C-alpha cells in the first residue's frame, strides 16, 4: 500500500494463502513412491473492507472463495499471510484466550439453511447458543427477550422460538441463521452463498433484510456468491477469483461497466440477459482446470483469447491501475 488512508479499514487480508495436504496415505507414498501433494485452495489473496461496506467475492466452483470465508472466521489457520481485524492480528488472537472475544465480533452465515441448523434444537436454543457460549446473557428471561428481539429484527415472530427448524421454509430458516449470526452483535459478517439455496422471490426477502440490517447496525459484509446479478445488487466492491487468486478487484460500478480482466469479461458475458430475448452469443470455451495441477504462468491462459508466451510462463502481478487492481499481463502491457 502506497498512501495510508486516514482511517484503517476494518478488515485487511494480506497475501492470505491456504493449502491442503491431499497426499495419498503414508503406506502408498512409501510403496508407490508417490510424493506429498498439496492443493493450493487460496494462493495469496489481499483485500480490504472498510467499515459498513460490502466486499463480494465471485468465482466459479473450486476458485477458493469459501476457503477465504473460512479463513476469515478462523475455521482454518492460513498457511501464509495474515488477516488484520480492526488493527489486530486475528489469527494470532484466535489461538489465545482473547480469541473468544474476537470471534464474537466476526460471525458467519452459511449457504445451506437445511444443514446449518440443528434439527433437534428449538429456535430459542439455536439463536440463544452464541449468547450463552460467549457469556453475554446468563439469565433465562433476559435470554428469551433477547432471542425474541433478534427474531423480530429478521422479520420473524418471537412466538416462533418454540418451533423446530423443520417447521420453517428455506427462506425463514436462512433468517434464523442470520438472527443467530447477529446474536453476539458482531461488526463483521462473512456470508458464504447465503441465498444460493433459495428461490428468487425468497432470495429477494433475505437480501432486503441483509441490506436493512447493514444500514441499521453499520455491519460490514464479506459476501460470497457465484451469482453476479446478486453481487451487483448487494456489494460496494467486487473481487473476482480464479483458481485461488484474485484476478480483478474494483468497485462495483467500475467492474460491471468496464471489466478489464478477460476472465471477468467472460463471467459477465456468460450471464443470461433477461431483457435480451433470443440473443445469440459465442460462449468462451473450456472449463476451470484441476487445481491440483494448475496451468503455469497465468492460470487463466488456456482459456484466454489474449494469451501470449509471457502469459504462459510468468505469473502476473496483482497491480493497481487507477484504483482497479488487476492481475493480467495483457492489461499491464496495454494490449487490452
Amino acid at each position, binding site marked *: 500500500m502506497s498512501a495510508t488512508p486516514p482511517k484503517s479499514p476494518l478488515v485487511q487480508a494480506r497475501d492470505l494463502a491456504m493449502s491442503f495436504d491431499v497426499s495419498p496415505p503414508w503406506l502408498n507414498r512409501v510403496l508407490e513412491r508417490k510424493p506429498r501433494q498439496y492443493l493450493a485452495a487460496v494462493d495469496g489473496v489481499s483485500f480490504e473492507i472498510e467499515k459498513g461496506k460490502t466486499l463480494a467475492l465471485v468465482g*466459479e*466452483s473450486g476458485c477458493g472463495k469459501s476457503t477465504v470465508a473460512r479463513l476469515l472466521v478462523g475455521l482454518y489457520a492460513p498457511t501464509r499471510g495474515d488477516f488484520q481485524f480492526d488493527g489486530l492480528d486475528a489469527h494470532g488472537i484466535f489461538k489465545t484466550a482473547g480469541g473468544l472475544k474476537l470471534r464474537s465480533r466476526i460471525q458467519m452465515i452459511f449457504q445451506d439453511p437445511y444443514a446449518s441448523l440443528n434439527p433437534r434444537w428449538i429456535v430459542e436454543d439455536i439463536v440463544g447458543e452464541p449468547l450463552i457460549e460467549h457469556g453475554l446473557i446468563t439469565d433465562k428471561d433476559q435470554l428469551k427477550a433477547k432471542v425474541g428481539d433478534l427474531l423480530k429484527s429478521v422479520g420473524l415472530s418471537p412466538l416462533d422460538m418454540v418451533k423446530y427448524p423443520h417447521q420453517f*421454509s428455506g*427462506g*425463514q430458516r436462512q433468517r434464523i441463521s442470520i438472527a443467530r449470526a447477529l446474536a453476539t452483535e458482531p461488526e463483521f459478517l462473512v456470508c458464504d452463498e447465503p441465498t444460493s439455496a433459495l*428461490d*428468487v*422471490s*425468497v*432470495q*429477494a*426477502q433475505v*437480501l*432486503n433484510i441483509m*441490506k436493512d440490517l447493514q444500514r441499521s447496525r453499520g455491519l460490514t459484509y464479506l459476501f460470497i456468491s*457465484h*451469482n*453476479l*446479478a*446478486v453481487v*451487483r*445488487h448487494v456489494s460496494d466492491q467486487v473481487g473476482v477469483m480464479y483458481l485461488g487468486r484474485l484476478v480483478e478487484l474494483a468497485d462495483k460500478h467500475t467492474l*460491471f461497466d468496464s471489466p478489464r480482466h478477460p476472465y471477468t469479461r*467472460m*463471467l*459477465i*458475458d*456468460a*450471464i*443470461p*440477459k*433477461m*431483457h*435480451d*430475448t*433470443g*440473443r*445469440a*452469443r*459465442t*460462449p*468462451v*470455451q473450456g*472449463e*476451470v482446470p484441476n487445481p491440483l495441477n494448475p496451468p503455469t504462468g497465468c492460470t487463466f491462459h488456456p482459456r484466454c483469447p489474449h494469451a501470449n508466451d509471457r502469459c504462459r510462463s510468468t505469473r502476473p502481478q496483482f497491480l493497481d491501475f487507477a484504483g482497479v487492481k488487476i492481475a493480467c499481463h495483457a492489461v499491464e502491457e496495454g494490449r487490452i
Partner: protein
Amino acid sequence: MSLLQVRNLVVEFPGRRGTLRALDDISFDIAPGEILGVVGESGAGKSLTGAAIIGLLEPPGRVASGQILLEGQRIDNLDHAAMRHIRGRKIGAIFQDPLTSLNPLYTVGQQLVETILAHLPVSAAEARARAINLLQDTGISAPEQRIDHYPHQFSGGMRQRVVIALALAAEPKLIVADEPTTALDVSVQAQIISLLKNVCAQHGAAVMLITHDMGVIAETCDRVAVMYAGRIAEIGPVHEVINMPAHPYTAGLMAAIPDMTQDRERLNQIDGAMPRLNAIPQGCAYNPRCPQVFERCGHERPDLLLAGATRAACWLHAKDQQGVTA
C-alpha cells in the same frame, strides 16, 4: 399440428392422510422444433410435468385425469413396455446431474451404442459411427478417442454434452430437459445452453426446458409457461411474458430478480412462500400473496384467460375474454 399436447393433466399422490394434487389441470402444446420454457419456484410442479410426459412419475404418483398426446397419440395410458419404445426413440430426456445420468461402469461409447441399437435398425459398426458423430455434434473434441472413455474421465460440462448426445441418439422429436445447467458453473452453463439450442435445431427436436432461471429462459426459449402451486399461472411468447407480464405472480417474480442493468436499493419481494400441497388456498392459489387481490380471487379459481399476447390464470383479465384452453 402440435407435436405434444397436454390436456387438463392432473397428477395425484395418494397417501395415508388423503390425496395430494401435485399438478392441477395443466394444458399446453409444444409445436415441432419449438423450445418451451417451464419456469417456477421449487415445488411448483415443473419437474413433475416433465416426469409425467416421459412416463417416469415416481409411484405412488399417477396421472389421475387428463391426456398427454404425442403426434396425436395418447401416451399417458401406455403400459411399461410400450412406453419404453417411446422413451428415447420419440422423447429424449436430460436431467440435472450429468454424473448420475450416466452409468459409471460403461464407457460413454457403450452407452451411446446401446441406446442407438435399442431404437434404430442399424448394425453395431453403424451405431458406433453414429455415436462418434453425435459426440462431434455436441462439441467433444477427438471423439474417436473420447468414445472409449468412462464418465469419470470427463469434466462436468463434458459429461452434460455426453448426456445431450445420449438424448439425441435415436433422433427423438422432443427433448425434456430438466434443469440441464443447474449443476454447472456459469461459464459452462452458457456453453451448454447454446449447444442445446443449436444441436436441437440441427436435429429438428423440440425442447421442453425446465429451469428456475429466468435468464436462461429469456435467451433460449420461444414460449414460456410460468408455474405456481401445481398450475400454469401464465403462458405465452417469452418476450411478452418477461417484459409485459400479465399475471401478478410473474410480475412479482420478474421484479424480485436482481438486475444487471439498473441499481435498486431494495428488491421487490413477494411476501410469504408458495403454499404446501396440502394447504393450497381456495380460489386462486396466489391470492394470499397477491398485491392486486380482490373479492373474486378468494373463492373462484381462474382458468387461463387471454391477456394481450399471453394467457394468464388471473381474474384481472376476466373482462377481456372468457377462459380458453390450450
